[in-house]
């Protein structure tokens, strides 16, 4: 018996992104797409942390000296490295998206090549930024 279109019951059907796994094979390109969203959400929290940092800096040296030891501790550095990579990944993949908006690189072989490019470049530049940061301290 078919359900009428006006039925009040919610149809129990799988929706994206829950299709990935049991229904769709995870692919490099779809994983990069999800990572773009996850890094974007992470960076939204990062932006709020940056604002908190600046408000603390503006409040004076007492507040700043409370958070500084956490930022320079190993776990603080680990979080900052993660944010650096998330920002650079979202940056690189964002440029990939802007090229798609221009209608370039939409075919599968190119999309996979630029996908690997985003992975490699984001990791290499993260390492370069931290090498520079540690060298100038």
């Amino acid at each position, binding site marked *: 018996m078919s359900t009428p279109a006006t039925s009040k019951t919610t149809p129990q059907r799988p929706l994206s992104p829950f299709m990935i796994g049991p229904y769709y094979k995870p692919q490099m390109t779809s994983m990069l797409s999800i990572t773009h969203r996850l890094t974007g959400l992470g960076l939204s929290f990062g932006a709020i942390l940056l604002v908190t940092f*600046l*408000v603390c800096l503006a409040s004076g040296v007492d507040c700043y000296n409370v958070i*500084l030891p956490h930022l320079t501790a190993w776990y603080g550095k680990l979080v900052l490295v993660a944010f650096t990579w998330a920002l650079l990944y979202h*940056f690189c993949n*964002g440029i990939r998206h*802007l090229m798609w908006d221009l209608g370039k690189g939409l075919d599968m072989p190119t999309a996979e090549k630029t996908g690997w490019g985003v992975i490699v470049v984001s990791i290499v530049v993260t390492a370069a930024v931290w090498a520079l940061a540690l060298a100038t301290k």
Partner: protein
Amino acid sequence: MSYRSPLGHARGLGSAKQGTHHFWIQRVTAVALIPLTLWFVFSLARLPSADFDAVSWWVAAPSVAVALMLFIGCALYHSLLGVQVVIEDYVGGEGAKIVALLLSKFVHVVAGVAGIFAVLKIALA
């Protein structure tokens, strides 16, 4: 064949009455964030020290203060648009969706005002 009326086609705004505004501003802020992000990441990496005086002095420089405010403004606007799409995609109930969208808007606006005020206070101190 197209089912759109000639008037609807001329207005070109669709059912949300926003047209491509959301899509376009997300791209405009993305393009603006290309130079701003590069500047932000490499400027922070090149800071000689993370202590209070060094970081305050850095933020207070006019060029840095202006770039930092632009970065905060563009990043939070871009974030607002992105988080909105994520909420619309994944938050099911209509009530929960509206609450989440409002909360996201308030948090983003408060963060933007607080960030820009903090930079101005340091720069004009």
